[in-house]
């Protein structure tokens, strides 16, 4: 078997994760950058935020993806106000664009009526920047954001920004 043939064999992969640790300055401006996809496509298996300091104002984020080549587009509808959300609240993206925005839940990742899940198994992201815009600033809230993904090319990865 040649070196080229070896290089063209398949690669084992597993679900990887990245965390963007929130800081107080995040929600005082817009946009708020979360993650950058590098090198090649990834399959997103889950994306969520967790409040670590209570939000005061009526913050209404819109998750958006800006590919390195191509136009930026919202990947979810606008969230309901985050005003009053306490530490431990979780914002869960269901993986759909036209459907529900990231849904705020209690600490278990469940809405009042049940678990909030990804609508599909995977969402493909090509290299680019994942961020949210925010029409209302806030000076007290902090949210950590998490992403789980499967890299689909040699060197493909997601880093917090």
């Amino acid at each position, binding site marked *: 078997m040649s070196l080229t043939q070896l290089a063209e*064999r398949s*690669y084992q992969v597993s679900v990887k994760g990245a965390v963007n640790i929130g800081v107080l300055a995040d929600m005082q401006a817009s946009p708020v950058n979360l993650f950058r996809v590098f090198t090649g496509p990834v399959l997103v298996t889950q994306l969520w935020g967790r409040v670590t300091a209570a939000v005061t104002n009526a913050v209404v984020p819109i998750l958006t993806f800006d590919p390195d080549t*191509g136009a930026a587009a919202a990947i979810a509808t606008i969230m309901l106000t985050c005003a009053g959300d306490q530490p431990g609240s979780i914002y869960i993206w269901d993986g759909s664009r036209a459907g529900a925005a990231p849904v705020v839940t209690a600490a278990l990742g469940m809405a009042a009526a049940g678990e909030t899940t990804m609508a599909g198994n995977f969402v*493909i992201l090509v290299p680019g920047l994942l961020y949210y815009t925010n029409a209302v600033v806030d000076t007290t809230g902090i949210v950590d954001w998490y992403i789980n993904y499967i890299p*689909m*090319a040699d060197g493909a990865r997601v880093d917090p920004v």
Partner: protein
Amino acid sequence: MGQLNQALKALHMNEMRYIHRQGVNATDLGTGLDYNIFNVEGDVQVHMMFGQVTTVIGATANLIFLNFTSLVPAATVALCAVTGGAINADAVNTLYVWSGAIAGALTAANNIGHSGSDLIPWAGNTILLSPGIIGVDVGAAGANTGEIDWYILFTPCFPGADITIL
């Protein structure tokens, strides 16, 4: 090398794997003929498969879909329906997403695995493929320019099973 490779695969047989086939215009769309992309060597469970435009597609109005030619029986079947529209002029980062359903179309999406309105989901949990060849049917429109990279995520079902690039 062969035995060592086999032994390594046996140790990790239950791990998911991906393989990335880079597009080659001269032998892919450039011929105007259907072309093969992956060789399935042993039974595998497919979790996801998609194409990504890496060089803008030319003016030929190809209608593409994926097919599978099994070794036994030696027959070719469609893995999905044709794209909803011709791929001519599709931009870089256009994704062609297979839903995992034969009845579903290979769907074009921009940048994020979403169509204009929403997510293109994977319809099945996994798709079982026996040994054979996965190919791209480019229709009868003829030769074109542009390049598509193809990706597949799968789990081998037993030691030695794998998918390789064609």
